[in-house]
């Protein structure tokens, strides 16, 4: 066309560009920011209204976020447990039916391919949710096992309801049967509606899983209870703030999934990401075991750690120095935490820094002050606990707010 516009319907046999998720029509209606991102090929809101108020809704009231674009795989069959246990680093036999567990899986060099949550519906029925496309890897890993792998990415929808009043909202929506669910519990609350007490916020929250086609109706059902519990739909920017507060790492941000990095040496092991407790050398063989066992002896090359940064300016992308001179790493995620009132970050340091050596570390923070760059060297402190912690996240039965 001469005027440069393209009719997107007639370019290819498949859709080009971003495609709508199950609740996009609803999001378009409420979006004032018109700020959209790409999540696995779907249109996903970065911000719907204001990052600030969306963030505070997560920590004060309750929020709704469509997680349907996430990759979801169903693993079923008599050897599903054995196959998954051969694939991931932790011992999943400890995840009982009706429970959810966080897991990482590696290549033969012990480098993390991805992390995700494993939902166990029954002895022989699992779902793996993760950021990266994993169909091929799962099919490979299933070789020789009596299991069926099904890609549910486009057939199962998910809504994440997070915040201190999230239980009250579920109660108002007729879903009070979740009341006795503990963190990481998973239950079919209504036929075709599974709810897990999980989330990426470190706060009270639930994830609701249903048929892709039913997701819109589920959204409406929750949305009708907007008042009095103060429900707000949010975008991923606000979510990113709370996950940093909770100390959760994000794929492609805080570590590079090894199968997606074209450059050598970008892979990281679970030990280097701080997940020693999720590597079980006693459970029998698993992918990457030998390499990880070796690294356990020789020690990790890097440390992904939590840092408290001096001053008030977020240290996004800052380089980390030892004794103000030697460059020893960099910040991978950073925000000023409006809830913890601390300047927080995740950072990757070259061993032994961040491991045995945690003193005399400094971050170089750049601040653009209306056209003038100010460079500040500020002290950093290594911390071990999550930056945000609140009893309400774990209380069972959950509190009303």
């Amino acid at each position, binding site marked *: 066309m001469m005027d440069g516009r393209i009719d997107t319907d007639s370019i290819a046999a498949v859709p080009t560009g971003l495609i709508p998720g199950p609740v996009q029509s609803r999001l378009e209606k409420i979006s004032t920011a018109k700020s959209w991102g790409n999540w696995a090929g779907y249109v996903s809101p970065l911000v719907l209204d*204001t990052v600030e108020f969306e963030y505070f809704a997560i920590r004060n009231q309750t929020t709704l976020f469509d997680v349907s674009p996430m990759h979801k795989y169903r693993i079923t069959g008599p050897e599903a447990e054995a196959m998954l246990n051969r694939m991931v680093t932790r011992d999943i036999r400890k995840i009982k039916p009706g429970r959810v567990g966080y897991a990482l899986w590696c290549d033969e060099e012990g480098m993390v391919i991805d992390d995700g949550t494993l939902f166990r519906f029954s002895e022989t029925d699992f779902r793996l949710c993760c950021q990266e496309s994993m169909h091929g890897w799962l099919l490979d890993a299933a070789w020789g096992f009596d299991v069926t792998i099904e890609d549910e990415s486009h057939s199962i929808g998910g809504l994440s309801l997070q915040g201190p009043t999230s239980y009250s909202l579920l109660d108002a929506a007729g879903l009070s049967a979740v009341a006795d669910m503990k963190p990481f519990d998973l239950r079919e609350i209504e036929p075709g509606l599974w709810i897990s007490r999980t989330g990426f916020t470190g706060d009270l929250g639930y994830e609701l899983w249903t048929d892709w086609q039913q997701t819109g109706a589920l959204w409406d059902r929750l949305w009708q209870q907007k008042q*009095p519990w103060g429900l707000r739909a949010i975008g991923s920017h606000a979510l990113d703030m709370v996950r940093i507060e909770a100390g959760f790492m994000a794929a492609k941000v805080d570590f590079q999934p090894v199968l997606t990095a074209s450059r050598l040496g970008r892979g990281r092991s679970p030990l280097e990401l701080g997940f020693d407790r999720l590597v079980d050398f006693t459970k029998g063989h698993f992918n990457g075991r030998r390499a990880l066992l070796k690294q356990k002896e020789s020690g990790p090359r890097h440390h992904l750690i939590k840092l408290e940064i001096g001053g*008030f300016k977020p240290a996004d992308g800052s380089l980390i120095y030892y004794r103000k001179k030697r460059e020893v790493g960099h910040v991978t995620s950073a925000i000023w935490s409006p809830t913890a*009132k601390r300047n927080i970050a995740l950072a990757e340091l070259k061993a032994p820094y961040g491991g045995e050596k945690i003193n005399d570390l400094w971050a170089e923070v750049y601040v653009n002050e209306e056209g003038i760059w100010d460079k500040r060297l500020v002290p950093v402190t290594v911390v071990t606990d999550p930056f945000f912690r609140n009893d309400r996240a774990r209380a069972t039965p959950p509190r009303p707010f």
Partner: protein
Amino acid sequence: MGQHDRYDAIVAGAGHNGLTTACYLAKAGMKVLVVEKNDWIGGAAVSRSLHEGWTYSNCSYVCSLLRREIVRDLELPRFGLQVIPYEGGASFTRDGDYFAYHSDHDALRREIARHEPRDVDAYDRFSQTVIRQCRFIRPFLLRSAPDPTSFKVRDLQELLYLVKRAHGLGAKELAETLRFWTMSIGDFLDEHFENDLIKAHLAGSGIIGTGLGVYSPGTAYVLLHHYMGDVDGAIGAWGFARGGMGAISKALGDCFEEAGGKIVTGSGVDRFQVEGGKIIGVALENGDEYRAPIVASNMDVKRTFLEHTNARDLPEDFTRAVERFKIRGSSGKLNIALDALPEFPAAPKNASFLRGDLHCSTSLEELERAYDDWKEGQWSSNPYFDMLIPSQIDPTMAPPGKHMMTVFVQYAPYDLLADGKRSAENWTEERKKAFADCVFDKIEEACPDIRQRVVHAEIRTPKDIEREVGLTEGNIFQGELTFDQLLFNRPVPGYANYATPIDGMYLVGSSAHPGGGVMAAPGANAAREILRKLGKTTSKVATAA
């Protein structure tokens, strides 16, 4: 008297500043006692349940000034403190319109243009001026004010810092700054804006808590005082403490007790005990006595020295200066439990600005007349109010679907005129009701169904605030924030460094620099001075970044 009654330091009054001082001293390893006259802690930063199911922030009601350096030092979030910002606000007119102060900048510009196109860019210039002034003054909040007559190294250093900062402004800006610090908010707004409603909306911050009118010199600074806070670095932003303002005091109290401090409630200080010019302890109203070489008073300067200290322990000129200190009650408050959200017919159905601060004053002239009533010893017949419904955002304040409303009202005199006489005793129950009725009439201009929504209301006059919180004349700032009572003149010349004529006795409340608001800066600054005098390290006490 047993050994257990001896402390390293005693803090008189568990207001947010007293508790802040106490926290810092306890964290520095001192054995600290806080005594409080009420059965609860918090002073004017309290959450109380006076009607079942509802929580009121009875006195102070919004939060912005609380210094984040202090919140961070004392790890208050770990003790449950969460500050939630609110969105915008509005001023309603009698003819069914409103000016909405949107937190979204584009929406705000459009809204200003709806009222007066010439004021759109004016607003941005106004903001620039205010933020520039805030940037200039903010570093002084967490520093002791220098005494210009002193030749002590520290005073000279601090003075040099002040001069350097002022010099950095350049001649033109310095002139602007001095003008800003002394002019009226009315004149300042008239210089910038055309529209009366917009001016009225912005003027509120210049008079809140102050016994001055919008055209009284010095009120521009009062606006600055309200703007220099922030929520997470957003200068001028205000928020709610989740669970009410008492959440701040509770977090401070828990921090203090974790650091080994002890709080005794239920009996106030009767006497500050002095021997040979030195403080030796306090005697409580219930007869209990406690000993300590350091005593910090969180009470205002008048209450501390004119009511609880023996005049013969003080130099006469000091006492005279304290007597002269201006501390006038000018505001009242209504805390209201509502059975549902009241209707605002003028506002769109889902207006987000209803979650902010709401007003019904439409011009500077109207505000000035409200002040005239106060000068005459009357409450304003057409009052200014700062009204919020925090339960729309904070789910902890009222039962689901019900609401809590806070209405800060100006002006209301302490010594009400009745039968030809001005006296606080004139605040009878009947007159309190009449005062509340007058406020409800005004609220009806914005929400006509307000009276039907009321389940319970607490009416607070300056007299009530004085009686309950102990603030002299019910002045919320522990003394007017006028230039004659700021910096090295606060509370009185020569005593701006938190010390007093009595050796070992300190003033840590808002009567001291930098003044009122739930800022905690006086408390932190005082703690730094005390620790310094004791030769202890002060590096753990917040200083301005």
